[in-house]
């Protein structure tokens, strides 16, 4: 949905433009990205382009740096003491790693859904209205409309429409995770980051979340970290394979899973390590 990008009139990402050009089919360009926790380097200078309106999967064994990379895209690593990043992540002609970036505005455009469903201990309605109210939407009719629209998009509306004002904690794990996705969608982001969104869910809930993600890519660009290679193969268009902080291979999902060009990738996807 290009309109979401253009709609952002009041958003202020003031920083000087960078010389790196992002091709129009790409939404994010990463160049020589390094991420450190204290002295330890978790990501070793990776470069890749994320395509607009597609699902990009990040795979690799635990501790390979894929989640760290994901969290750097909306600056969630800022919350971790001692974490710092070097290199560039270009979004909308801006290096979002720059100190001048308005991180709050950035996170409104690049949303995130976490591994463990984390609804607020409030009503279902308030969970979605929380971010909207902060963004300045106060009118009840407008809030109602966005809440319904977001829940529809997250395929949750029919299940919760009669109990919008009940606690979100009364939902099942799968429903909670779809609520978290709805909450993200409500902010009209351009990119949604998903950090192993279905690893804590049962297979049926997992299937629903996957179906939802595939449906979302026509409106949003999605980057998903997953431990489940079948999941990556099922839902993603492109896949990046990480190992020990390096980006080993990045290609179309079909190509990467059927005919990987690097031996390490083949060993990992065939289950020989990891």
């Amino acid at each position, binding site marked *: 949905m290009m309109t979401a990008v253009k709609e952002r009139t009041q958003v202020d990402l003031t920083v000087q433009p960078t010389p790196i050009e992002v091709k129009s089919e790409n939404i994010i360009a990463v160049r020589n990205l390094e991420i450190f926790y204290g002295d330890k380097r978790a990501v070793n200078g990776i470069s890749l382009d994320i395509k607009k309106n597609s699902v990009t999967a990040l795979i690799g064994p635990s501790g390979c740096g894929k989640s760290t990379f994901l969290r750097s895209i*909306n600056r*969630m690593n800022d*919350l971790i*003491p001692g974490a710092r990043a070097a290199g560039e992540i270009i979004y909308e002609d801006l290096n979002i790693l720059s100190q001048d970036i308005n991180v*709050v*505005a*950035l*996170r*409104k*455009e690049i*949303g*995130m859904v*976490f591994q*463990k469903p*984390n*609804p*607020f*201990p*409030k*009503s279902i309605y*308030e969970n979605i209205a*929380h*971010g909207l109210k*902060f*963004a300045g939407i106060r009118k009840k009719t407008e809030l109602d409309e966005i809440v319904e629209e977001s829940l529809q998009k997250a395929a949750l509306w029919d299940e919760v429409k009669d109990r919008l*004002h*009940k*606690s*979100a*904690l*009364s939902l099942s794990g799968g429903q909670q995770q779809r609520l*978290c996705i709805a*909450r*993200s969608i409500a*902010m009209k982001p351009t990119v949604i980051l998903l950090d192993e969104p279905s690893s804590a869910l049962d297979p049926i809930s997992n299937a629903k979340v996957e179906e939802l993600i595939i449906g979302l890519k026509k409106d949003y660009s999605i980057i998903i970290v997953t431990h489940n290679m079948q999941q990556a193969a099922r839902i993603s268009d492109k896949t990046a394979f990480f190992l020990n902080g390096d980006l080993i291979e990045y290609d179309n999902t079909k190509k990467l899973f059927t005919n990987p060009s690097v031996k390490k990738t083949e060993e990992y996807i065939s289950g020989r390590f990891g």
Partner: protein
Amino acid sequence: MNSKAADRVATGVFVAIAIVIVTILVGLFFYIFVNGFKYISFDFLTSPSSNVRAGGGIRDQLFNSFYILFLTMLITVPIGVGGGIYMAEYAKPGKVTDLIRTCIEVLSSLPSIVIGMFGLLIFVNTTGWGYTIIGGALALTIFNLPTMVRTTEDAIRAVPRDLKEASLALGVTHWHTIKTIILPAAFPSILTGAILAAGRVFGEAAALLFTAGLSTPRLDYMNLNPFSEQSPLNIFRPAETLAVHIWSVNTQGLIPDVNEVASGSSAVLVLSVLVFNLLARWIGSLIHKRVTATK
């Protein structure tokens, strides 16, 4: 001894400890109420205390206790919660934060009589106010602030990090997240801390002896002008609280019915703390249910 027997012994020991605690509490309540209830009457609660004759009541002391409690909490809760938020959410780990934390711990372990002497120096003599309600309330604030900061900090730290991250990831600022997500989630624990602090205020005597004083002027409860000498609302008048009254009639009372007054006052004091506790918890749970949408 095999492990099964050891398990049984351990269980027995813990049950015994629990029984001892409950017995002490029940015994104490029983003693206080049996001795005190028969002296509590409408007259006792609504007449002023007497200096020499029998038959004095505790009207003013009871009012003073609640009034000082109210003023103390009015100062303590906002500053204490603010300090707790700072310590949990803003203070960067390092020497300064460690120093602040040490100060809070030392402050919370000061004996209340020492705080009373400090209050005498600052709020009575330096300011030239003499014995006043506000002096007493400020002394009690010093006494309670560290606990309030500590419980708030612990309560905020106990809120799952996920909730904070979830809110920040929606493009909501740190402060708005604290206001709308973290504080409501921490509310029950903060309330418990405030109730404990309130109980301490209600029962405190030592810190008030030299700050709020041992006497109460003749009060006119119809006079609501807070600047009038006779008004109960005047914060610049001396005020003997219930706990101080129990101490003073026992040590320097000239009235013939010292025992009756002391026992009755004790029962009223304990009852007040209990009622205040239950009421605060009940209101707190109503608020919490409203905010979290649980029924």
